[in-house]
């Protein structure tokens, strides 16, 4: 999955809010060393299970998915740190070996029935 234009991203958030749904937005807040995505890269998680965008492929995506699903359930936002040691990275065949801080954020749509 590739990066998506901001306009498209916020359109998708707005649409979910319009349906009264919660959306979880994962954003690469900070990086150190070699990481698979740039700061500011975003991935959206919808209650339907659908996603859009990416925060960096195999290295971290599975962990981000788990945290995002948790956030969809609990509704609480938090900054998560993911380390990609060179060993782990090479095992997965990925070109990364730094740390990524990813903010997993809940955009709620309560009060949307008005």
């Amino acid at each position, binding site marked *: 999955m590739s990066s998506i234009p901001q*306009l498209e991203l916020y*359109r998708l958030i707005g649409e979910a809010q319009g349906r009264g749904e919660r959306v979880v937005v994962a954003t690469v807040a*900070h990086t150190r060393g070699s990481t698979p995505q740039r*700061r500011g890269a975003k991935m959206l998680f919808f209650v339907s299970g659908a996603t859009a965008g990416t925060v960096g492929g195999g290295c971290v995506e599975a962990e981000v998915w788990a945290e995002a699903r948790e956030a969809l359930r609990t509704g609480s936002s938090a900054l998560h740190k993911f380390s990609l040691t060179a060993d782990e990275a090479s095992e997965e065949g990925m070109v990364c070996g730094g740390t990524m801080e990813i*903010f997993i954020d809940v955009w709620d749509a309560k*009060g949307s029935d008005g």
Partner: protein
Amino acid sequence: MNDARDPREADDARPHDGDDARALAEAISQVLRGGSLAALATLVVAQRNVGAKALVRAGGASVGSFGDAALDEAVAARAIKFLSSRQEAATHAVEEFAPTLEAWRGARVMFERVEPEPHVVVCGAGHVGAALARLARALSYRVTLIDDRADFVTRARFPDDGVALVAATEGWAKAVREAVGTGRGVAVAVVTRGHNEDEECLRAVVAARPDYVGMIGSKRRTNIVLERLREAGVSEETLREVRAPVGLDIGAVSPEEVALSILAEIVAERRGGTCAPLSAWRRPRTENER
């Protein structure tokens, strides 16, 4: 476009309230649709209000709050500074930019640039123009492709509806002016079939002073066009901004390669690239200059 538009001030601080989240999403969409620039600031680490956001427009007006006027003010000031850098996103500790705010010690704020994708206006839908439109779409840039030959700008030729097609049946100038708008966030490539058409387009473009404007042609031919504009009273400063001949010297030959050379220059202008090979540091200078 105009940063002062809809200068709604923040209501009281209820960062997690859905109504505020919707207002914020709408305000962001407005910035993106209007072609303007803003910074989205999010509290990512804090004792309270994690996830609270403020959208700070380049003009200074804000939507949203962190629940503390002093923090709001400090973040707004830092957001403006952030926007003047070319960074897409950065996360800063509050004590970095507001050391006096004891209550927010240890808190961190993420700043994100909110700006539409570059809009590439291609004047001329010949081989180079067509290749440039397709390549710019591959980068998710918005594209407007203009030609005065209506059968060159058909959906059959460009099925991607991310390419806006304009038949300049009432002359180039009007179509180009409409596409370029304020010039903010706009890159223009003048690649028509002839130098008279190029001149007509360039005249229509330069007044808006877009982020980037380039014209195809040899040094000699582009000089002739620029000289005519100079005679018509276009200022030296404006003429200096015109990349003519357009593109980077990558030895491009085919229309697709020429399109790549133009797009590479547009990206470099946007991101502040040097256009030098990234590997240059490996080679001693003397060897490079030989």
